[in-house]
């Protein structure tokens, strides 16, 4: 059974009277890659900073290995951080940057040399020890920042949107490398990002946040397939969200048509939000189709075509390998297990 490494209990943090992190409860296991995901201002970075010790919670407790650490400063926590713009020390070269933490811990010279070399190998920068950090590319600075953190063998590594400043291809390869690194090192990675694709790619667990409140915690597939509410459904992947009525057991009605579905936890006649992923809709012959519409736009996305189909005035987004011409009449089909129902939340639309 996975051991709880960090626990956040009713943690709240406010700025200028407004709660940026609002009474959140969260636990994080050993050897876990967990991502805090959400739009700007949702409180994810503040939460990360509180775990690192750079901010103090206004209320609640942060518990590390059973010990409350609210008042423990960053330099006394077994945690290291990779900052968003790397925060490399400009006056030190690569070696000295990486050795910085070790020197502060009074580690012996020979051991420092060994560990720095290992760290550089791990981030694929074996000969960079003497280089000046200001001459490195973004990707290289990124790796030095990671090396500088992990060389201290922390129990927990915090990463604050570390890939935000890199170009697309580099970001994608770094995502893979970070995931591999976490597996190899066996330590907990707490990762912050607003990029849902990044979160889905790398995480064991995703924590979706909005306005300082946790919206949903789950595995990538779990959250993708079964979002709890409209916000999560919209934020993760693309979706078509419709108003519907749960007619009775395994039957839901939307767009004036009844569909079989597999969700059962709703009452007869209850209004529900219906979520269907674009890739789950199939284009079929309009004859005999339950949903019929007209193609209003077609965009080539490299891997697939993104079609917009207007059905009774509502726009459906479909991902398909077969193109259709704008103006064509088409039918849409969806399987019952691909219809996901969510409770309608108050004041949501």
């Amino acid at each position, binding site marked *: 059974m996975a051991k709880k490494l960090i626990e956040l209990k009713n943690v709240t943090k406010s700025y200028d009277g407004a709660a940026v992190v609002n009474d959140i409860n969260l636990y994080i296991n050993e050897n876990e890659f967990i991502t805090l995901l959400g739009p700007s201002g949702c409180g994810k970075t503040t939460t990360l900073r509180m775990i690192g*010790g*750079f*901010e*103090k919670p206004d209320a609640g407790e942060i518990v590390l290995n059973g010990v409350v650490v609210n008042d423990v*400063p*960053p330099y006394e926590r077994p945690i290291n951080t990779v900052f968003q713009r790397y925060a490399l020390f400009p006056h030190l070269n690569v070696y000295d940057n990486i050795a910085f933490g070790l020197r502060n811990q009074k580690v012996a010279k020979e051991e420092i040399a060994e560990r720095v070399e290992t760290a550089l190998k791990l981030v694929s920068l074996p000969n960079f020890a003497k280089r000046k950090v200001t001459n490195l590319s973004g990707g290289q600075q990124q790796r030095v920042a990671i090396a500088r953190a992990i060389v201290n063998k922390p129990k927990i590594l915090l990463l604050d949107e570390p890939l935000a400043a890199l170009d697309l291809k580099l970001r994608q390869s770094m995502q893979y490398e970070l995931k591999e690194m976490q597996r190899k090192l066996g330590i907990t990675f707490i990762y912050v990002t607003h990029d849902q694709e990044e979160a889905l790619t790398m995480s064991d667990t995703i924590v979706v946040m909005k306005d300082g409140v946790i919206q949903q915690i789950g595995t990538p597939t779990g959250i993708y397939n079964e979002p709890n509410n409209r916000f999560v459904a919209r934020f993760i992947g693309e979706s078509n969200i419709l108003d519907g009525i749960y007619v009775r057991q395994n039957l839901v009605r939307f767009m004036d048509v009844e569909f079989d579905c597999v969700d059962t936890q709703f009452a007869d006649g209850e209004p529900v939000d219906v979520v269907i992923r674009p890739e789950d809709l199939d284009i079929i012959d309009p004859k005999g189709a339950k949903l019929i519409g007209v193609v209003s736009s077609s965009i080539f996305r490299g891997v697939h075509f993104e079609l917009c189909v207007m059905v009774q005035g509502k726009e459906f987004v479909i991902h398909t390998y077969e193109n259709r011409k704008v103006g064509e009449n088409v039918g849409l089909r969806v399987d019952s297990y691909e219809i996901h129902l969510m409770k309608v939340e108050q004041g949501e639309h």
Partner: protein
Amino acid sequence: MNIKKLGRLALPYLVWMLVLVGIPLVMILVLSFMKTDGVSFTGATWSLEAWQEMFSVTDPTNLKILLDTFTFAIIATVICFAIGYPMAYIVARSPFSNKFVILVLTIIPMWSNSLLRNVALKNILSETNILDSLLSRVGMDFVIRFANQDQATFISIIVGLVLTYLPFMILPIYTVIEKIDESLLEASMDLGANPARTFLKVTFPLSMKGVTTGIIMVFLPCFSGFAIQKLLSRGTVYVLGSLIEANYIHDINFVSMLSIVILFLIFGSMMIVNKVDKEGATLV
């Protein structure tokens, strides 16, 4: 947590400023409306005597001094601008390797004592001067002749003020022009403006920040100083600062009043600079 705490390091500075700037400010204001014996308040009475002495209609000597002070300061500032703006522009637009050298060349005179430079200037502007004496050995002349002594003094003072404060006009303007993004000028020409028009419509307006700072950095010292004027006129010309020098020991109220007159100008210019340049970028 820690960054916020670091802000407390600035607190002593706040106190320091309040004591060394705030308290005297209040004192000056109060003293100008009183008649006291030095800085002590024993036997003090409220009085408008200081102000009357300055702005009296019956004896306008002080008012004339005020006028002269303005005259010198304004003329010197205008000339500094006329020479300083082109200089700043030329240096800012010169190729990169030259820039540093030229800048240093412009600043080097500032490392000679400014009073001594003005003493030397007096020498140069006199009928018998050292350059003439040297050059006469090779058969040349170097004498600057004036129509009369008054003109000589007047021009000497203007030249002295200009030479002393010209770098203060050049530096802020240089800083601002140097920062103007090349692509702005290219955009201007792309949109049909020739170089002259680009200068008028783009460069010059963008440089106004530096010009304002430069004007203030020249005008204020010209207006409030007395040493240069005294040196170059052998003590015959009086400006506002000279009145302060003459009275600071025995008539502190008059001096306070004069300080307030100067402070009016300073306050106005600080408001302007603060509006125009919030992070102090043009001052260094």
